[in-house]
């Protein structure tokens, strides 16, 4: 039981947090811009390398340098929207989807060009001892930080979307873009905010993964599929659904390799990603509209 919590549950929640933060962006972009943003994983990588670059200059805990990564990801996302996606806005969305594949390749190549293709480890001041609770639970501090940060972000995002003018405008555009136009809402401002939030959260998610393992140019691309699974599972266009979807996918992946029966892993960890998709498909058969359809947020 202790092993279960230490080695499966908490790592599951941690990777779930990463998926949740990435999936929120994917879900919001889909809800407001109506296209599947396949460059989202690589946007995550860009944000991560932004922190890595800052960490090379300022020797403090990389988590404190996350604003640099967020800023880089936001600037890059807004620029890409202006140059690549905005001119395609009036065309069928498939053009933008394909274009986002191209953007993903550009991001990955630029990261390789500037920072090289090898794995890079964050220098976080040596090995950090795990958090020991009641002499039995040994939990990575980073995992706790990831879960807590995601929880705070979820609360803040909920507040932003339900109480602020910009947040409500975002939900209105997501709900019905034509009516939003008739209501005189500034849809381009809503689009900008979608990129700002999506990119910022992607950078945070990327940093957690990179600090947990290492930073490499394929970091975000490798996470793209489970993040999409999470966004679809939550009911695409529903940020809070995407958050829940992220945790379900993350937990399903980790818990599937626990030795539920006998001493062997139930499913080999190599099949983790497949598990994510089986869970997604199974839940969508039961609930095709996603978990959060019809809910407010």
């Amino acid at each position, binding site marked *: 039981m202790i092993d279960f919590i230490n080695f499966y549950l908490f790592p599951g929640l941690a990777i779930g947090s990463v998926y949740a933060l990435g999936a929120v962006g994917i879900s919001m972009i889909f809800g407001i811009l109506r296209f599947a943003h396949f460059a989202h994983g690589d946007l995550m990588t860009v944000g991560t390398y932004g922190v890595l670059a800052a960490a090379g200059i300022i020797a403090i805990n990389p988590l404190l340098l996350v604003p640099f990564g967020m800023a880089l990801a936001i600037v890059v996302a807004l620029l890409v929207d202006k140059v690549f996606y905005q001119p395609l806005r009036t065309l069928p969305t498939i053009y933008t989807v394909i274009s986002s594949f191209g953007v993903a390749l550009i991001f990955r190549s630029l990261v390789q060009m500037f920072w090289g293709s090898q794995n890079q480890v964050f220098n976080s001041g040596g090995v950090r001892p795990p958090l020991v609770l009641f002499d039995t639970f040994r939990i990575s501090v980073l995992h706790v930080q990831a879960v807590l940060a995601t929880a705070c972000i979820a609360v803040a995002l909920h507040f932003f979307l339900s109480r602020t003018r910009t947040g409500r405008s975002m*939900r209105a555009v997501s709900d019905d873009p034509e*009516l939003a136009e008739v*209501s*005189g*809402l500034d849809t381009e401002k809503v689009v900008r905010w979608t990129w700002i939030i999506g990119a910022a959260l992607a950078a945070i998610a990327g940093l957690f993964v990179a600090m947990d393992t290492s930073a490499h140019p394929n970091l975000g691309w490798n996470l793209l599929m489970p993040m999409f699974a999470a966004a679809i599972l939550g009911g695409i266009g529903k940020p809070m659904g995407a958050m829940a979807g992220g945790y379900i996918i993350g937990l399903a992946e980790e818990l599937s390799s626990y030795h539920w029966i006998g001493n062997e892993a139930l499913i080999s960890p190599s099949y983790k990603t497949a598990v994510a998709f089986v869970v997604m498909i199974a839940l969508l058969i039961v609930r095709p509209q996603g978990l959060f359809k*019809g*809910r407010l947020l």
Partner: protein
Amino acid sequence: MSALLSIRGLTAGYGGPPIIEDVSFDVAANEIAVILGPNGAGKSTVLKTIFALTKVLSGAIDFEGTDIASRKTSALVTLGMSAVPQSRNVFRNLTVDENLDVGTYAAPPADKTATREKILELFPDLRAKLRQPAGELSGGQRQMVAIGRAMMCEPKLILLDEPTAGLSPAYLERIFDLLLDIRKTGVTILMVEQNARQALQIADHGHVLVNGRNFASGTGKELLADEDVRRSFLGGTPE
């Protein structure tokens, strides 16, 4: 009475051949004007063109003496115009209160709380539903939310596209009564309506379009008595 909205020789469409051609009429301040005509006459297109949702090919649209033919929709809201589309006219996943709130974003009223209170007095049914998602309401209640949302920016002119479409006869009368109440608050109404006879009874002026062109214009009473209009669009004998 000076014209609040003046349309002169308006030709517009969606990219193909024009849907409306050379349409002209005036809407005076604080009146209820109704656009009538058979299906496909271009009635809704007139409203969409005024509200910058379709392309003006030629002609002029003056609002309070300013040419607005090339303005954007958001700019028109700022000038004091708002619109309610025929279908999909509420944000279904937003609560009633949020729907009303969204109505203030493009052109915030001087006192939002007072405006909201004024609207809830007009639509008392909505008071108990403020926290409910608008998508869960009945068709009639949704129409009230939609009109309420459009009134939150305190417009001078409100454009309504078939406000009674799909409503039960009981609601139909309520909506028409409400329009009279709205006019009393100083708002001018220009609407497209299928229920021609009832609409003309509350309207100050009616404009009949056929095949995208002006066919007849007059006061509600005149059109109700007009033999051609009655035979073609109203059916039966005058009440």
